[in-house]
């Protein structure tokens, strides 16, 4: 094992860059990654982060109780903007939940080997983000005690949900996505759980990991079945990555509300979701690799590649903004043109320009290699992208609703302190789950990372002793 610092950020067409640094053998990989879970105490930063996020989570819980007790009037949702923060937050969190499955499924089918370092915790992030997302429409329905009416459950009232409503399609789309993502995440984790079980030092750990490892022994037959399942789940999850946010976009695009009804919404929402999801992966990966010593796996090259994906998807979002704006003019439709001009120069112009600055202008810095490889710059950009993508949903939802077809209805939306605190609380929920995940589950797919190392290549002695990108 060498300890020399290695630069793997070169872009040389004659050779592929190594993706794992400073580890020549499988044993040291296992030791490093399992070490995250096995160390007796997590770093101090973990305790601080956990204290903060669990506090926010508690506040969220109290506020949900307050909401249930008092009613949805505690929010700023008022005629005409009946969809305020809860739906903005819902779309925001569903969007965040897109990177994980994209990395795991689509990049797997595209044979992108670098994904192995980040897929595990990106998937975990996906699941936690979808939990945050699913909570908001659930508590937004008003009479929460009958929210099960969303599901087509036969009952004595013979009440069926409105199948023509995209809000119902959401229930199915997000539900399916959550189920498949969870399965995918769990199935991928089985060999690593078995590794933790085999290395366990206490009975409790051995039994706990052992239950979830499902008796994995790593036999040839086990691996064969595992690989087939993984490929099939990837193929099933791939259309899901596109379908979920497409269905979420239908919530808006099927309506006749100006600014909502444009046909490019489905792919535009998907691109935006991946954009924000990757920004969130970066926001979590940069501190995590620092605090847990994972820089040899999540290398600078990985970060740079993700920055490129942020640039690509950000450009797609920019393309959609331009097409929407062009078509609003080209259509000659009065209301449509008004909606878009109003976004830019109307009462919510400040939100619009935050969105454009954070989503379109600032990510252009990633055209420069310096910005793509500088940790502080990329961290700053990714935080701003998160802000921008939250504001994108705010702009779409609130500007269009506040000034609809009836000028007598027009009003200005004011969030309440409950709105703002619940948004912060949802980050508490997200971070608490994420910190628990880092503490107790394998954060990097150990078995998959090993498979992209030179030592896993049976022809390694014929070629360069390097993993291929």
């Amino acid at each position, binding site marked *: 094992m060498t300890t020399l610092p290695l630069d793997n950020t070169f872009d040389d*067409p004659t050779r592929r860059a190594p993706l794992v640094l400073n580890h020549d053998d499988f044993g040291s990989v296992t030791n490093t990654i399992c070490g995250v879970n096995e160390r007796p105490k997590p770093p101090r930063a973990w305790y601080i982060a956990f204290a903060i996020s669990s506090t926010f989570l508690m506040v969220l819980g109290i506020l949900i109780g307050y909401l249930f007790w008092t009613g949805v009037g505690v929010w700023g949702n008022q005629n005409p903007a009946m969809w305020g923060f809860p739906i903005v937050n819902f779309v925001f969190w569903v969007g965040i939940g897109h990177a994980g499955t994209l990395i795991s499924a689509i990049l797997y089918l595209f044979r992108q080997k670098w994904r192995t370092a980040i897929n595990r915790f990106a998937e975990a992030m996906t699941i936690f983000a979808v939990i945050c997302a699913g909570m908001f429409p659930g508590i937004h329905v008003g009479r929460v005690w009958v929210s099960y009416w969303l599901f087509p459950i036969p009952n004595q009232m013979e009440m069926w949900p409105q199948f023509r409503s995209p809000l119902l399609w959401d229930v199915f789309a997000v539900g399916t996505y959550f189920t498949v993502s969870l399965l995918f995440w769990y199935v991928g984790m089985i060999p690593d759980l078995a590794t933790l079980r085999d290395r366990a030092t206490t009975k409790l750990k051995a039994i706990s990991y052992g239950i979830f490892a499902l008796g994995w022994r790593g036999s040839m037959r086990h691996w064969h079945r595992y*690989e087939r399942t993984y490929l099939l789940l990837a193929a099933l999850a791939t259309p899901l990555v596109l379908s979920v946010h497409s269905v979420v976009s239908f919530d808006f695009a*099927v309506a006749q509300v100006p600014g909502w009804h444009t046909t490019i919404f489905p792919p535009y929402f998907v691109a935006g979701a991946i954009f924000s999801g990757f920004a969130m992966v970066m926001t979590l990966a940069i501190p995590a690799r620092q605090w847990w010593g994972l820089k040899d796996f999540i290398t600078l090259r990985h970060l740079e590649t993700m920055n490129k994906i942020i640039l690509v998807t950000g450009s797609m979002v920019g393309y959609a903004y331009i097409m*929407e704006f062009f078509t609003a003019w080209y259509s000659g439709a009065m209301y449509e043109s008004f909606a878009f001009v109003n976004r830019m120069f109307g009462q919510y112009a400040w939100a619009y320009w935050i969105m454009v600055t954070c989503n379109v202008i600032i990510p252009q810095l990633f055209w420069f290699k310096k910005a793509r490889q500088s940790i502080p710059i990329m961290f700053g950009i990714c935080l701003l992208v998160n802000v921008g993508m939250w504001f994108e949903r705010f702009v779409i939802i609130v500007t269009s609703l506040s000034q609809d077809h009836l000028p007598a209805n027009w009003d200005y939306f004011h969030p309440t302190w409950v709105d703002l605190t619940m948004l912060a609380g949802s980050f508490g929920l997200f971070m608490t789950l994420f910190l628990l995940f880092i503490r107790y589950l394998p954060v990097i797919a150990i078995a998959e990372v090993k498979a992209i190392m030179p030592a896993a290549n049976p022809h390694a002695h014929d070629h360069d002793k390097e993993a291929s990108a």
Partner: protein
Amino acid sequence: MNAAALAREDRYLGDLGPKLYVRLGGIGLGLIVVSLVLGFFAKDWDRFWRAYVVAYCFVISICLGGLFFTILQHLTRAGWSVAIRRISEGLASNLRWLWILFIPIVWIVWTDSEGGLYHWTLGAEAMREMGGAEAGLLAHKEAFLNPMFWTLRAALYFAIWFALAQFFVGNSIAQDTSGDPSITSRMQALAAPAMILYAFTQTFAAVDWLMTLEFAWYSTMFGVYFFAASCCGFGATMILLIYFLQRAGRVTESISIEHYHDMGKFLFAFGIVFWAYIAYSQYMLIWYANMPEETTWFMVRQLGSWKGLSLLLILGHFFIPFFFLLTRHTKRVKGVLAAAAAWMVAIHFIDMYWLVMPMVPIELVQSVDGDYAALVIAFQAPENAAYDLNWQLFDVTLMLGFAALMVAGTAFGLRSRSLVPEQDPRLAESLAFENY
């Protein structure tokens, strides 16, 4: 891989080249002349020029797909595709001369004062005098839809495509002799801005040439739809070209079943599933919101025999090829995949035909005042029979003529060149890769 067989393989068109470009070029030009004669006897020049637009968009969508694919490989630093990239470069190289075939369309736009092909060439003023209900709308759009700006835009698209094709094809061929890996680095560096130029020129070309056929209608998705369609046309054409090249004894070793499999996946993912996703989203959103200014475009495509053609697209462009190419087995038998590709090329042509041809006078749609059942009945009246689907022989001869010219142009672009980018630094990776 058998190194000896690889060394022996024939990587040049050789005598096949002149045969292809002379004969197919002759056939192509001949078919265009035949089409003109047929058009002359049909005496319906508006109809003829619509067929011309169909054939033109069919061919240029395939070549644009070739350009997209080539740029994409550099952008992603792809290894698997190196062995087949030269073929897509050959298709893209046609963008250097395809503007010549566009000149007649420009000529029509400048001279057609009756708005026979593009209604907007009538002009808002003339439309108002005729009592056209949409004159006000056209007046609003005239800043965009006037022959001068339209032609300048087209010239810009062609200039950009010319430059991109020249750069990516020219550099790749230059690498064959110099073997300089920095050429690859240069192409990679320019791939990202090239992709942005490609996205905007392709989108607005689709808007200008296809969407403005009905100037009142609009859809933000239209450029993406045309992109998805071009991926279908390109992916299928690529498989066919590789198949016939190998049948003719060229590049028999370096292009393996693994490349067929991956091209099959490309065709499946982009040309079939992505196309269906875009087509469905566009249709469903317009159908659901049910706003008259948007639905007319689809209503026309649900009348008379057009309905059958629309259903054929749903089945033939999605359901049948989806299930057929879902399994890996069909993607890994060369003849079977080539047959599927031939089907997809044909259905791509029908897709272009479906985009351009259906045209019901707006007066007819307005006369029924939103009553769809009444529109269906009115459409069946004998005086409206001309608006129903009526195939003309020149629809097919023009398409075949253009396609022959495209293949001839591809062969000309690849004459005396290696059919494999021999000095590409990632060729070894492409030759060795296997699908799991």
